[in-house]
């Protein structure tokens, strides 16, 4: 079988203030008709640059510096913008990453899709409309006659992504480039969108170049896999082979760090459930640090019944354990976390941390005292650190606020805290923008821990991070919990991550707690249909049975602590 797309020795350079920077350095890959080639890599690996070169949409300061890109027997490098326009849409379709921003908000769904057809010379309105309806039907959008007149904001994220897929396949291109097409979607929606892409590919024999950071998704969907890092190919080959017998160290690291494929975090404590009485270091009977009872949060809406964001949620978290709140977007999990951390007052219900009833705190002073026992870590480390303050000042701030110790003592505690979270001392003088995402999240964790709280609410704290960094942070959290006896409320949409770290789990759906129990119960014997759906949607589960990393990659259950530390330190060398 001849390849549909052949990329040979591709090099891409970006012009910057410091001269040319090579983002892609000698990449080879092939896409065969009717097959999926997955291009896997973390942020900054150059995977998007490859995709953009293929479709001729590199940023204005980027250029293809060498190599060749052939579609069939046509050379694409060196095409003029004008020539490329006849390739885009007609020969290569693009499914972009963010369905929220990729549709024209002031044009109807019909007009959005018809635009592709119009650009490529479809004049007849009746025929165009018929084609758009046919496309909407093919991407499983119900009631196309109505949808065609709606605007993008009236559709859900998953539906918008379907519309974008419809636009990408409108002219039946031979190749579809899907650039992280499901990263912005909930897991259950992600699965349906990926199934749709699969079906269309098998129906039409289209080749798919699938760009993703998610190894599990690649393992499940791809025929061939190309793993990239820092602009170079680390490994490529048939998916079965790459995942069952990875050749490069980097692929092995990725496999060991992917939460949906392996055990990322080795927790040395026995898994405790709410009634566990065998805690080694704790008191003989584990007491509950956090008790949430019948929590209900309504948001008033103008001219409508109030929106119920959280509806009768109750759970208890024992000292030194992790409780995970799981749900998709809009499930009320973040709202619950904010109430627990004292940032929002619920409509009804109580939250008790230790002896303090958080929901009864009225004065600012009392709420302020709560900060010493309860801290919140945000999802986005780019937004939660003041861009104008150095790491030292950020971590010191809580101590300054509560006037703890003198100047020398505060500096000592900052230094100690930075060491705790695995950051080098010289990082203390840097500004947040000079740090990587993982380092920033470590700073945010250090700030939360410097007051020595007992309860830490982690709101999607690892969701914005690359898998290897995510794994490091998860290990860090597990180590800190063990050393400091911390209690976590871990809010996440990612069940694979939750399984790594949680002792008890609540599953929320549209504000309602549909399931609650120990992690083992929820993952192994889910009682609610929705939990089963969520579990089934974890990518990698339905993948080939061979998707287990080779022996050296699997962390032995008794892997010594030092080795973990080592890995974390290396990542910051």
């Amino acid at each position, binding site marked *: 079988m001849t390849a549909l797309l052949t990329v040979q020795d591709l090099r891409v350079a*970006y012009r*910057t*203030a*410091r001269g040319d*920077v090579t*983002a*892609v350095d000698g990449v080879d890959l092939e896409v065969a008709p009717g097959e999926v080639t997955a291009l896997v890599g973390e*942020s*900054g*690996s*150059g*995977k*998007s*640059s490859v995709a953009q070169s293929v479709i001729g949409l590199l*940023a204005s*300061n*980027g250029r293809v510096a060498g190599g060749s890109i052939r579609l069939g027997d046509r050379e694409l490098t060196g095409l003029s913008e004008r020539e490329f326009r006849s390739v885009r849409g007609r020969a290569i379709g693009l499914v972009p990453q963010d369905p929220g921003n990729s549709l024209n908000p002031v044009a109807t769904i019909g007009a959005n899709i018809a635009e592709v057809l119009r650009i490529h010379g479809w004049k007849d309105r009746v025929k165009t409309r018929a084609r758009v309806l046919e496309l909407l039907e093919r991407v499983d959008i119900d009631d196309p006659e109505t949808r065609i007149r709606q605007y993008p904001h009236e559709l859900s994220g998953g539906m918008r992504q379907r519309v974008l897929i419809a636009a990408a396949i409108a002219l039946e291109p031979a190749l579809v480039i899907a650039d992280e097409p499901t990263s912005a979607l909930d897991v259950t929606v992600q699965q349906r969108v990926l199934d749709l892409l699969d079906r269309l590919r098998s129906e039409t024999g289209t080749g798919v170049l699938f760009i993703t950071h998610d190894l599990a998704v690649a393992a499940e969907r791809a025929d061939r896999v190309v793993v990239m890092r820092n*602009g170079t190919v680390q490994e490529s080959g048939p998916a079965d082979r790459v995942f069952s017998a990875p050749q490069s160290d980097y692929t092995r690291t990725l496999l060991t760090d992917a939460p949906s494929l392996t055990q990322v975090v080795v927790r040395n404590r026995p898994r405790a459930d709410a009634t566990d009485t065998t805690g080694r270091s704790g008191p003989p009977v584990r007491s509950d640090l956090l008790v949430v009872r019948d929590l209900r949060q309504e948001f008033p809406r103008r001219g409508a019944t109030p929106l119920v964001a959280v509806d009768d949620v109750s759970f208890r978290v024992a000292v030194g354990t992790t409780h995970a709140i799981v749900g998709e977007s809009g499930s009320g999990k973040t709202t619950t976390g904010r109430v627990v*951390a004292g*940032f929002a007052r619920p409509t009804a219900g109580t939250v008790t941390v230790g002896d303090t009833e958080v929901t009864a705190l009225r004065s*600012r002073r009392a709420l*302020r005292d709560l*900060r*010493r026992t309860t*801290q*919140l870590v*945000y999802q*986005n480390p780019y*937004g*939660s*650190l*003041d*861009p*104008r*303050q150095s790491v030292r000042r950020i971590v010191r*701030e*809580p101590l300054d*606020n*509560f006037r703890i110790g003198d100047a020398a003592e505060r500096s000592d505690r900052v230094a100690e805290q930075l060491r705790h979270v695995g950051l080098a001392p010289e990082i203390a003088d840097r*500004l947040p*923008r*000079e740090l990587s995402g993982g380092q920033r999240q470590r700073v*945010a964790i250090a*700030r939360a821990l410097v*007051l020595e709280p007992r309860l830490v609410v982690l709101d999607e704290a690892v969701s914005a991070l690359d898998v290897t960094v995510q794994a490091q942070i998860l290990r860090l959290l597990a180590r800190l919990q063990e050393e400091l006896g911390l209690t976590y409320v871990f809010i996440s949409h990612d069940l694979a991550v939750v399984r790594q770290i949680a002792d008890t789990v609540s599953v929320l759906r549209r504000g309602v707690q549909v399931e609650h129990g120990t992690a083992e119960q929820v993952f192994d014997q889910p009682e609610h249909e929705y939990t089963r759906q969520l579990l089934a949607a974890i990518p990698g589960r339905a993948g080939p049975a061979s998707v287990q990393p080779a022996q050296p990659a699997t962390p032995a259950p008794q892997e010594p602590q030092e080795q973990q530390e080592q890995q974390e330190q290396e990542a910051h060398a």
Partner: protein
Amino acid sequence: MTAATIATGTLGRSRVAVRLVPGLVLPGLVITVALVAAVFPQLFAHGDPTTSVGTSLQAPSGAHWFGTDSTGRDLYTRVVYGASQSVVGALVAVLVGLVVGTAIGVAAGSAGGVLDDVLMRVVDVLLAIPALLLSLSVVILLGFGTTNAAIAVGVTSIAVFARLSRSEVVRVRVSEYVEAAYGSGGRGVVVLLRHVLPNSLTPVIALAALQFGSAILQISTLGFLGYGAPPPTPEWGLLIAEGRNYVATAWWLTVLPGVVVVLVVLATNRLSQAIRGGVR
């Protein structure tokens, strides 16, 4: 994705580079000269701006760079000494607008609720009155004179400063790092001073530079209309006003002071852009 990484990596360096581009050297020079002339006019001109030095209405020459006016005073000397009137006046005007406007805006933005509504409605009323009409009313209430004209001009810019600083404070106030600061036990005023103000004032400073230019223009307007400094005082607007009767015979009396005003205003515009662009 890669491009973005590279861009963040070089941000720190490129910001310094922006400050040194040649396009900024000239505006910087113009403003420096104007400021120095405002404080030490004798460095640039040796004569006395109010005494007659020769025949009236001489064309520009080596002895009298800008020529002489209708009573034989050296126009160049008058323009140099006028800098103190105009530039200092503009500084006062900007200061009035900046301090009062920002105070109103920050109070409204950080307090919210009823206070926000009341303050912003007052600002809306201020905005509804044409700037010239407002400054004329104020200057008539306060009495004529350079300082009063400057205050009158400053009052007209209060509304703009208030609106801008309010919107910036509101933007920063809802950011996660401000909430995180409260979460670390910060109190209202401390968080405001430590996080909200530093992160919201950059656009306000840029606006101040922009307003400096337009204040010079507005003060000149008031001077031209006769509400500013009394006649023998060399003030830029007044100079242009005095020269307007001789436009046909002695063009330099209006054109040359006019060019100086235009240069200073353009320079502050350019500077304002650099402040805004350099940080964003």
